[in-house]
């Protein structure tokens, strides 16, 4: 089903246009990379604060509220440019193991954000300037790890080691949704 969809996507004029236009593709990818500085950069600073290794004189609540708009701005830029990059090369990206691992890491990071927002930071008034509780620090470590993996896996999408043509093992075929050559 999804595979039919991405194959159809590849035939749209939008996809072909993005793929064929050297400048449009390059500008989109550069903006995607530059937005990392805004998005992961601000997240890392907040996580360092939670870990107690930076900005300890700034309240946690201020750190969260004043940085969040910039993190969201970065996220919007990343999703827009990321979708355009997917649209430009839909079939190959859909099968890419790195793209799939990247989505998995984004999912883990999102669940971590939900747990932090709805459970962990509820009582932050009690530790706004004092000792940050361990559960918050665990969230910070998961966040740093997950977003670092998103960057690493994202970069690796460019490499063709595990493209469908070079996959021979049934397990890898299952993970990537590639079809093995019969015989």
């Amino acid at each position, binding site marked *: 089903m999804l595979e039919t969809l991405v194959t159809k996507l590849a035939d749209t004029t939008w996809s072909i246009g993005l793929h064929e236009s050297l400048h449009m593709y390059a500008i989109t990818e550069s903006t995607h*990379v530059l937005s990392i500085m805004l998005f992961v*950069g601000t997240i*890392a600073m907040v996580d360092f604060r939670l870990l107690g290794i930076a900005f300890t*004189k*700034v309240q946690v609540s*201020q750190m969260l509220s004043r940085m969040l708009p910039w993190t969201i701005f970065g996220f919007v830029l990343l999703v827009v440019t990321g979708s355009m990059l997917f649209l430009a090369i839909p079939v190959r990206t859909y099968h890419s193991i790195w793209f799939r691992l990247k989505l998995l890491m984004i999912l883990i990071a999102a669940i971590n954000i939900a747990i932090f927002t709805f459970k962990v930071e509820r009582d932050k008034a009690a530790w706004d300037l004092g000792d940050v509780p361990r559960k918050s620090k665990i969230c910070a470590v998961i966040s740093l790890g997950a977003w670092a993996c998103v960057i690493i896996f994202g970069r690796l999408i460019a490499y063709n080691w595990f493209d469908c043509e070079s996959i021979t093992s049934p397990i890898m075929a299952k993970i990537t949704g590639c079809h093995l050559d019969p015989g």
Partner: protein
Amino acid sequence: MTPYQIAENIEASGLGQIIRESTWLFPIIEATHLLALALLGGSILIMSLSILGWGLKAPLADLYTSAHRYLNAAVFALLFTGVLLGVSEPVKLYGREAFWVKMSSLLVSLVVTYCVFNPLVRRGVASWGLRGATVLTIAAWLAVAMAGRWIGFS
């Protein structure tokens, strides 16, 4: 020895060969370069946004104490991984305009950051000069990152 011959010698060096011939080394160094870029962005932005009135409301000198360590770590990691990437394909880089644009804007960024921006932030006094230096610092680093990404496209 001409600059081109120097590039050829570096390309033939043992380190250059090891990185070039390995499947994983170049991509992993590249990814680390990107991780350091995120750290650079975060540490500069947290000071810059506050200076421009769009970020934290905290004494600048306090922000500087923490942020400049991460800034230094990021710059060190970027230069270290950058040199490794460069050593693996210097002849290709020598012929690319984007590489020279990147190196010139990198020089400007380092000078502006360490000779103008950092000293002003450390002093902690908000001024129009500091705001100007902030905008210039961000613009310079954006140029470095943009030219860097462009090396791969040109």
